């Protein structure tokens, strides 16, 4: 992470990641409150805010989930503070009801900025849905789309002003390539005056306004006000927004509209192809700057729209062309002129433009033989659980327990986290997933069908706090019999080891009371609740089997600190890494259970000797492979 994000040096040029630049923009915009739930690609926003917090009198929290983050952030605005809520696109679903409400009703006197990391192509997500659909059509709040770190900073800073002017939350829509790209950013001023919190009851003010307008409490007034007043003001802001730039010399045949990072792809493609279209960069895509768009539509024959991932802008542009009866040809996703899903890249944009202009592409060497040669190795490094990962041991223990109970068959349902990698071979611990909390949620329904197999919901610790509790109560409420396995590695590991309610410390490093999963489970009415150490596979399997045998809903917590986090903590304490194990070649019988069923990446198969050895750079000496090996061949190395 950049050390320079908090530098009080206006005009200095520093390298910042897009997410860090958002945090810097919030700092320059006098944001004093930040809340989030971790999610790639947006996690570093709150991480940076938390790091800046103590030096700049900012409060930053990791919240239990995005709903809690939204409420916390919105709460601060009612006390007059500027506040930022960040999340990945999936997190928007958790603040949907809240955002609809607040856009109709009112934020407090402090500005509220919602920064969302969408993930075109789903690099780190279960899907690539475009959250602008919600922001524009459902929440009906202005959307800013920065293209690079500099814009991420400027747009975030300006968003607070817009929010206070419009009394609406402002949606800063990032994408993975904007969140995680670093670039040179020129720093601005950090305001020295902090606001003092003071509660202001907007509720009554708004009630009076409604009464005056409609004569009674008629909430349709709020929608009317949003459409006739706030969004009209927002459209004016959009028209004058410096990030909405029309570059047109006159006489161009083709116009291009591009938002977010696509704009930079367009700039490169245009230069490489040597073409000169009229360009409209949209940094504020909702509401559309209609005058600028209309000016472009009127002066060219064709307009191509580049955006990720849905035709959100394109649809608006088509509507505008229809409203104004303009005959211009619009090319984009809706007529499959540009790719209809996934992430764009400079080459894709170049291909589209070469088609539009009838110009040949710059020559890309074929390298056919070489591409054939590397083909078998593409995708060979599928992500796996780390060496020593306690989840691998937990999965193995569950399968061991199932083997001794009804012949090994069970219905396994996974959830969102590192343990998603327990689904694919070799572990194959579960065969179904949905969104956060879906494991316990789906188990409720599957168990109530009366199916005659053990039903097992696998859920991580952070996910349990986030979304597991209401469906667990539902199990007690409705007498559903299934077993929940909580994979408790004590951090939010997949997104970068952030603390959660069970960790005992906050985003800002303050001590806090750990909320215990076993206490929650018992309070939810679960009568069978046990905690096991997954590194002791046999013991863990015995307890899990007892959970299967229990007549009601049961829950087993497999608790062991994330092995990668354990290594990180050792390193920060100046301790050497733990000693790796070695396989005794005389004992190894070449059965490959450790590779084919257990799947630890530290196990190496030697085709010549037909024996397994251990990669000393990966092994952390967890000793679980020794328990899995029928010959107990892996051994601790004696000093």
């Amino acid at each position, binding site marked *: 992470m*950049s*050390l320079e994000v908090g530098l009080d040096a206006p005009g200095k*040029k*520093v*390298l910042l*990641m897009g997410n860090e630049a958002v945090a810097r923009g919030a700092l320059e915009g006098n944001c004093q409150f930040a809340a989030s739930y971790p999610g*790639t*690609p947006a*996690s*570093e926003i709150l991480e940076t805010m938390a790091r800046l917090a103590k030096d700049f009198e900012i409060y930053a929290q990791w919240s239990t989930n995005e709903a809690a983050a939204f409420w916390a952030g919105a709460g601060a605005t009612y006390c007059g503070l500027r506040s930022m809520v960040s999340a990945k696109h999936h997190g928007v679903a958790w603040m949907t009801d809240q955002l609809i409400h607040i856009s109709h009703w009112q934020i407090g006197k402090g500005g509220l900025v919602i920064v969302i990391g969408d993930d075109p192509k789903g*690099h*780190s997500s279960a899907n690539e849905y475009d959250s602008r659909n919600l922001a524009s059509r459902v929440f009906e709040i202005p959307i800013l789309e920065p*293209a*690079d770190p500099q814009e991420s900073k400027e747009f975030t800073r300006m968003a607070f002003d817009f929010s206070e002017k419009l009394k609406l939350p402002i949606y800063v829509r990032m994408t993975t*390539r904007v969140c*995680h*790209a*670093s*670039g*040179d950013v020129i720093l601005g001023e950090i305001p020295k005056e902090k606001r003092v919190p003071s509660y202001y009851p907007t509720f009554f003010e708004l009630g009076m306004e409604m009464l005056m307008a409609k004569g009674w409490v008629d909430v349709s007034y709020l929608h009317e006000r949003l459409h006739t007043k706030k969004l009209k003001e927002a459209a004016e802001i959009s028209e004058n927004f410096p990030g909405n730039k029309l570059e047109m010399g006159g006489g161009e045949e083709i116009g291009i509209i591009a938002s977010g*990072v696509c704009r*930079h*792809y367009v*700039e*490169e493609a245009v*230069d*490489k192809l040597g073409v000169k279209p009229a360009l409209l960069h949209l940094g504020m895509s909702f509401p559309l700057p209609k005058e600028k768009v209309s000016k472009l539509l009127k002066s060219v024959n064709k307009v191509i729209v580049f955006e990720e991932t849905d035709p959100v802008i394109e649809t608006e542009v088509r509507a505008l062309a229809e409203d104004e009866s303009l005959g211009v040809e619009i090319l984009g996703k809706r007529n499959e002129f540009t790719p209809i899903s996934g992430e764009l*890249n*400079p*080459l894709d944009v*170049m291909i589209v433009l070469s088609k539009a202009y009838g110009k040949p592409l710059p020559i*890309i*060497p074929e*390298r056919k*033989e*070489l*591409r054939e*040669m*590397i083909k*078998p*190795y*593409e995708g*060979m*490094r*599928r*992500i*796996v659980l*780390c060496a020593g990962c306690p989840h691998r041991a937990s999965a193995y223990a569950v399968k061991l327990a199932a083997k001794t109970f009804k012949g090994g068959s069970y219905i396994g349902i996974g959830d969102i986290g*590192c343990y998603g990698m327990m689904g694919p071979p070799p572990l194959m611990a579960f065969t179904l997933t949905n969104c956060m909390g879906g494991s316990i949620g789906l188990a409720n329904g599957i168990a109530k069908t009366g199916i005659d197999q053990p039903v097992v919901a696998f859920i991580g610790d952070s996910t349990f706090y986030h979304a597991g509790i209401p469906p667990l109560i539902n199990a007690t409420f409705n007498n559903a019999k299934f077993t929940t396995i909580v994979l408790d590695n004590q951090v939010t590991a*997949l*997104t*970068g080891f952030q603390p959660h309610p069970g960790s005992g410390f906050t985003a800002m490093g303050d001590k806090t009371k750990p909320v215990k999963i076993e206490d929650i489970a018992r309070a939810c009415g679960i009568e069978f609740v046990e905690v096991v150490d997954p590194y002791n596979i046999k013991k863990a399997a015995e307890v899990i089997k007892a959970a299967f045998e229990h007549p009601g809903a049961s829950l087993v917590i497999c608790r062991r600190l994330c092995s*990668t986090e354990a290594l990180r903590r050792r390193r920060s304490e100046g301790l050497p890494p733990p000693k790796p194990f070695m396989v005794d070649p005389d004992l190894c019988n070449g059965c490959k259970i450790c590779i084919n069923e257990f*799947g630890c*990446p530290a196990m*190496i*198969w030697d*085709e010549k000797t037909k024996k397994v050895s251990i*990669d000393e*750079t990966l092994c952390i000496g967890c000793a679980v492979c020794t328990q899995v090996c029928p010959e107990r061949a892996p051994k601790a190395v004696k000093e």
Partner: protein
Amino acid sequence: MKKNFDILIAGIGGQGGVLTSRIIGDAAIEAGYHVTVGETFGASQRGGSVITHIRLGKERIYGPLIPEASGDAVIGLEPLESLKCAVKFLKTNGIIVTNERPVLPPDKNYPELDKIFESARKIPAQLFSIDSIKLAKEAGDILSSNIVMIGAAYAVKALPIEEEHLKNSIRSKLPKAVDLNLKAFELGKKAMEKK
């Protein structure tokens, strides 16, 4: 100072490709370049293939992704990852400078090292390789192997940045182990100068 220079760092999640790119990026800013570094974190922290795109521009810069077959150099932290990256992204006669110590994938399906190098030369490319793990151990910490690679890349002109800017960046990004990492840089540089 070059007008534009595109560098790819190829490696595996956890090898330190991200830190490497930040060190190069900071050095390039000090050298007066516009910089963009395209990175993917998150799931790629754990053993997946990771390619980082570093773009330097004297006057201007485009987006964070380098178009296919137009990169000037590939700095590789793992030999097969270097080849895969170079076939896709390196321009004709670009530079590949790579660590020669393989990291085997879970299914252990991996080509002979000679075959990797022979293929890399066929791109065609100027190929340089060293055992950065061995040199990192010599410097005092296996984790400094990517700093060894920065030294090696500097020596073979895969980084159009002055040595002092790179060293300043190492000093500011790795304040806890400055001497060790500067030694790693020197070892990488010297190993290439011998070749």
